[in-house]
């Protein structure tokens, strides 16, 4: 079932485990803030995965030093740019979710999702 590269790809394996930890946080926590923290852990796992994909053994970060421009000298710059995109999007999403949470807290005075849905039902909606 398992392929040959599980231990060579330990970075990717760690990122996958981190992703699942974040996802289980999302499923099992009732507190909205903790759910958002779980989502951020998932984001971080994706950054780690992308950085691992761009890495090439014995090569340095893609900043041209001493005019060396061979492909053999630098790691892959494309995943690094994608990580940047991911970071910006995750910051935006986190900010929007936190502000929605603040609005919910102002309305219901609790962060527990079960209690909020209970209050919603009691209101008759």
């Amino acid at each position, binding site marked *: 079932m398992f392929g040959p*590269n599980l231990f060579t790809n330990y970075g990717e394996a760690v990122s996958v485990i981190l992703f699942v930890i974040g996802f289980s946080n999302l499923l099992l926590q009732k507190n909205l803030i903790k759910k958002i923290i779980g989502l951020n852990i998932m984001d971080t796992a994706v950054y780690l995965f992308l950085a691992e994909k761009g890495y090439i053994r014995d090569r340095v970060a893609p900043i041209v030093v001493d005019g060396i421009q061979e492909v053999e000298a630098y790691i892959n710059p494309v995943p690094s740019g994608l990580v940047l995109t991911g970071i910006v999007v995750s910051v935006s999403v986190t900010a929007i979710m936190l502000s929605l949470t603040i609005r919910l807290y102002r309305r219901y005075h609790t962060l527990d999702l079960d209690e909020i849905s209970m209050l919603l039902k*009691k209101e008759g909606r």
Partner: protein
Amino acid sequence: MKKDSAFSRWFYGERDTLLDRVEMKPQTGHAPRAGEIRELMEERRLIREHIYDVEDNQKLKLFHRLYQVAAVVFCATLMLIMLVAVSWLPENGNPDNPVNNEVSARYIENGLQETGAVNIVTGMILDYRAFDTFGESNVLFISTVTVLILLHNKKKKETGAEDVAGGRANTAEKSRKSAGPAEKSGSIYEENLILQKIAGILVPIIVIFGVYVILNGHLSPGGGFSGGAIIGAGLILYQNAFGFEKTERFFTEKTYKWICFFALTFYCLAKSYSFFTGANHLESGIPLGKPGAILSSGLILPLNICVGLVVACTMYTFFAMFRKGDF
């Protein structure tokens, strides 16, 4: 159609076809017995209490337990599937992986000549893929707008209107009214002597470091996003130490709007121009400069400054919104 046909008379409301054909009776209201309403209310209360009695609800407890077990099983399965997928991925760090194709080779080999940026990642995201970065800046801007819509305090305007009616009032007092009780008195900022002293030393260093990171975005690790985040953090530290009264002297909602507007418009126009000339093989007239010098690499430096401004303002705006709902 004839004016006085049956249909037209019905249509204009002169004739009711149901009149005299259907037996009609006025409804009589249901008169409740004495005490019936109270009985009904009591019944309803009991039903509600039974439904919402979460503590003693065995089914709900069973459901929660089942949900937790199912969630754990689902996560474990997901992890197993993804670990299997990872184990079949190509070897990490191998130069012959399919990820390392001609796209990245082209960026590395020709990036310095075509963009003038020493930092290949910056050259990539602000030149080859600049519209992508423009989209990112817009994502940040839109999320700030959403946060503004969700958290903006409307009390300020109301108290402002009262103040106008009541007479003159200074702006600092007005903005304090919409804040929390501790913020209102301003007392929380007077006690933090240690924080104020440390912030007085650190904030200039942090902001200068952020400016350095932005200006050297094409020469060293860094760029608009990271430098903007550093400057935003410095602003937040300054606000925490000295309060909104001090930051409002140079940063208000208006400042934010204008900075974001000008930065995003400049970015859009500059990049549209360079893409237009590039796609039509025209001379763009933007000097690339000597690689490694700070004034080099064409449009990347001004674009980095734009992105940095947007990000710094956005970070501080998020904080101000979460803190008290306005600037």
